[in-house]
């Protein structure tokens, strides 16, 4: 085997590692995709793979767990409880990032996120995330930028939906209208 083939084989060996899979997952998430490569690399080193079985809670309504998850396999659902009845809000699939705002500061969950089947997820912890961001202060504005653009998009969709449903008088304002 010549040296360039060897080098290719070496690179492939690293690419096959869980590290590179996780890096790809992070790179594709809406909140983290604008981050610098070095910052992302360090984030991969602090995120953990967690397994869940059916009915495991990834997040619990009214709790501040300080985690964000990227689903890598399986299925999870967000459920809102009004105290008596639980309502399914939506389902998440592999590749979705959930709870990213909790990385930025304390917040209690407004819904419960539970596994519908055996699920694997990458978990980022707020403290670890902030330790990484301390090393890359220039990337903080990128996170804020991603978040703001996502909020604006979300608000626009909400208003359009309210308008199309004729429910604009319901006094529900989006985040960007605060």
């Amino acid at each position, binding site marked *: 085997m010549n040296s360039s083939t060897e080098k290719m084989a*070496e690179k492939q*060996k*690293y690419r*096959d*590692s*869980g*590290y590179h899979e*996780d890096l790809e997952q992070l790179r594709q998430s809406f909140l983290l995709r604008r981050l610098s490569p*070095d910052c992302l*690399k*360090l984030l*991969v*080193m*602090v995120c*953990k*793979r*967690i*397994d*869940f*079985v059916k*009915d*495991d*809670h990834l997040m*619990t*309504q*009214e*709790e*501040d*767990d*300080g985690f964000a998850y990227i689903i890598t396999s399986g299925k999870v659902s967000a459920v809102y409880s009004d105290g008596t009845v639980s309502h399914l809000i939506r389902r998440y699939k592999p590749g979705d990032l959930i709870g990213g705002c909790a990385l930025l500061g*304390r917040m*209690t969950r407004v819904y419960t996120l539970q596994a519908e089947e055996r699920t694997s997820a990458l978990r980022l912890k707020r*403290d*670890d995330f902030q*330790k990484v961001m301390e090393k890359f*202060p*220039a990337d903080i504005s990128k996170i804020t930028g991603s978040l703001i653009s996502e909020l604006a998009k979300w608000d626009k969709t909400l208003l359009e939906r309210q308008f199309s449903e004729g429910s604009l008088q319901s*006094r529900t304002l989006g985040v960007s209208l605060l």
Partner: protein
Amino acid sequence: MKAKKERPIAERSIFSWVLKGGIPLQLVLLLLIFALVILRVVPLELQKRIVNDILSTNKFSLLVTYCLIYFGAVILASGSKFLINWVQTLIGERALTEMRRELYRHILRLPLSFFRTTRPGSVVTSLVNELSIAGNFVGMAISIPLSNILTLFAFAAYLIWLNPLLGIVTLSIYPVALFVIPKVQSGANKANKKRVNATKEMASQITESISGVHEVHAHGSFFTEEQKYNTIIDKLLNIRIIWTLYRQAVKVTNNLFVGFGPVIVFILGGYLIMKGEINLGALVAFLSAQEKLYDPWKDLINFYQVYQDASVRYASVMQSFGEESEFRLEKIPGSDAEIGNKVEIKNLDFVTPDGVKLLDQVNLTVEAGEHLALVGFSGSGKSILVKAIGQLYKYTGGSVLLGGNEVDELSKRDVVKKIGFVSQDPFIFTGTVDENLLYACKALSGMSVETSALAPDLEPSLDKKIQILQEVGLFVDILRLGLNTIIDHQAYPGLEEKVLILRQNFQKNFGRELAKYVEFYEDLNYLYHSSVMDNLIFGTPLNTRYFSDKLVDNTEFLGFLDCCNLKKPLLETGSDLILQTVSILGSEPVEEVFLTQTPICAVEYSHGVKIARQLESLEVDELEDTEQKFILTTALRFVPSRHKILRLQPHLKEMILNGRNAFRQWCSKHAPGAVIFYSNAEYIRSQSILNNIFYGNLTTSSPKINDRVNQCAVFLLVEEDLLEQVVGIGMNFDVGNCGDNLSGGQQQKLSIARVLLKDPKLLIMDEATSALDNKSQDRIHKVMENWKGKRTVISVIHRLDMLGHYDKVAVMKTGKIVECGKTEDLLANKGVLHELIHGKDG
């Protein structure tokens, strides 16, 4: 007799520390200095006598005698000098230690407001760096000036004794130097200050340009940034030249004056010899003494520069910590009356130094044993209010009465005895769970005495600790930490045998249910949750040479690896792990938190970086033995399920499984009894208690399965009466740096537990359960029900559905209490509480 009150540390001069090094030592130093001065003069006289007496008498025996005395004097002078340095070091280091001790003591007691504006880094720099210069100065404050001035005087006296005229003329240059040198030095000081400022300006400019380098590239504004930078460095260039010139000028001026000495001696001395007023020996002694004047003089000039530097730094440090503690720390003698736990707040104000009113005429009464919830909008002053009640902040107006006593006037000792305070962001200290649990109790018992050790009769029993752990919901966590511990079998005799019984019970009762979440220690199973070394050895080493940290130094084991062709692939795996880690994390030192997914730990990271560099140009087998051992250790520590930077190659897995079998055979032949191999009938000392119960590794992180594991463990431990012992083991768990090894919820529970353990009569909780899950919050609130009527509770809460647990609620808005009463009454009134819960439009 009334003890003399010591001045506050920040007001003490640098010289006040001189005697802190020890008066007896200073006296010893003085004696040594006198001895040294005499011993320095003796050789001068001998020089004169050797020239005069020997030349005139030609007596060899006299020459030998003089030389021996000379030799002895030189040896004794050197010995004295060494002893002086030794004593000076002792004095300096003792003074520095005392300075650091007292300043740290002072800093810890400074008001909390001080720490809002002071960065921890500046405290560290002051204590670690700045004070060491001052300590260094204190060590030399007596010895250097005294020994050198005395030496100068002794030499001067000797010179005048030899010839008054020549002596006075030679010495006349020193007063002139004393006048000129400080003037030059003052110029150097001014230039130095300018240099410091210009350097800061340059650092700021570099930071700005580099932070915004993407903008520089985007606009192509390289020239603009260069110009800004060049202006500063040109300015710095001039300042540095002037500063260096001044510093050199001090030396040149000094050398110049000293250089005049021999010229004067030659001219005047030669003239006096011609006139017969002085003999040759005296002139030789004169020249020698004059030359020797230079050393003490130079030392004095250096001392002057150190003094200046130390004074500036010391003054700067003390100025930074000039504030005083806001509260009395110790009880007033005779004021031992029991303090009640009713809280009365009247017209309470808190205004910041900038004039912002954070509390405005707060009035509130909490009866003894009553539970009050404090709620309000963000920034309404809830935290400030509870901190004022807990004596963490000094209020600026009004009063807070605790059992009729003004909180401001109570000693800290009274307050910590009476009040338990749990903050929103609890701090966990480095040490074990148990040490953190006892933290408040220890502080309480140690406040009036120098030691903070807990008296044996004050140590809470294990039962009490367990009760508190259960109350705060930490019991299962600690139990799990205990189960995950690899125990020292000598410390827990008999435990291994009992765990083997648990293993049988587990297999009988829960084996089938949990089997799919465990990788069992079976001969043909590769253990992805164990290290390569565990997979290979597959047993517990008894011989120390086979212990994990000694294995790579065991030549026989290395021979075995070679024999079964494992050394090369392991070296390759180790190299891959190192290269991959360094390529991700870079070459700078990194914290432990970033290394959890690699087998390399923080302390050895720099070694890893060095090896990665070598591997760029060398093959792994070309590296030195030490490097190869490091690489091998890294590979042997590799746990595929945890260290995701590399995937375990299938061929290596097969080789290790084959190697496992080969090692067993090799061991029975070459090192019989060195390892006890995994067997269902043996306790595995290299594994945790839990893994021993399972006879395998738990493979899932699922909360539900882990809860089930905990339930099974409790069942099994209770059956064998081992529960308390394992919890005891869990309490010795090392929580890591600032509690890093515990989750946020566990830290908060531990902080509540440590306060409850000291049994305070007034408990203040500032969003103390915010990081807890709902179940834990509910549990704590249910426990609180039992305290009603016995322990007063004031709790800032964030979950308004918890209001039902409190006797009454106070609602805060912009620093005022706007509503106070029973929850149901306030909700019925549809006031601010109603708005908080249901919103403005609710």
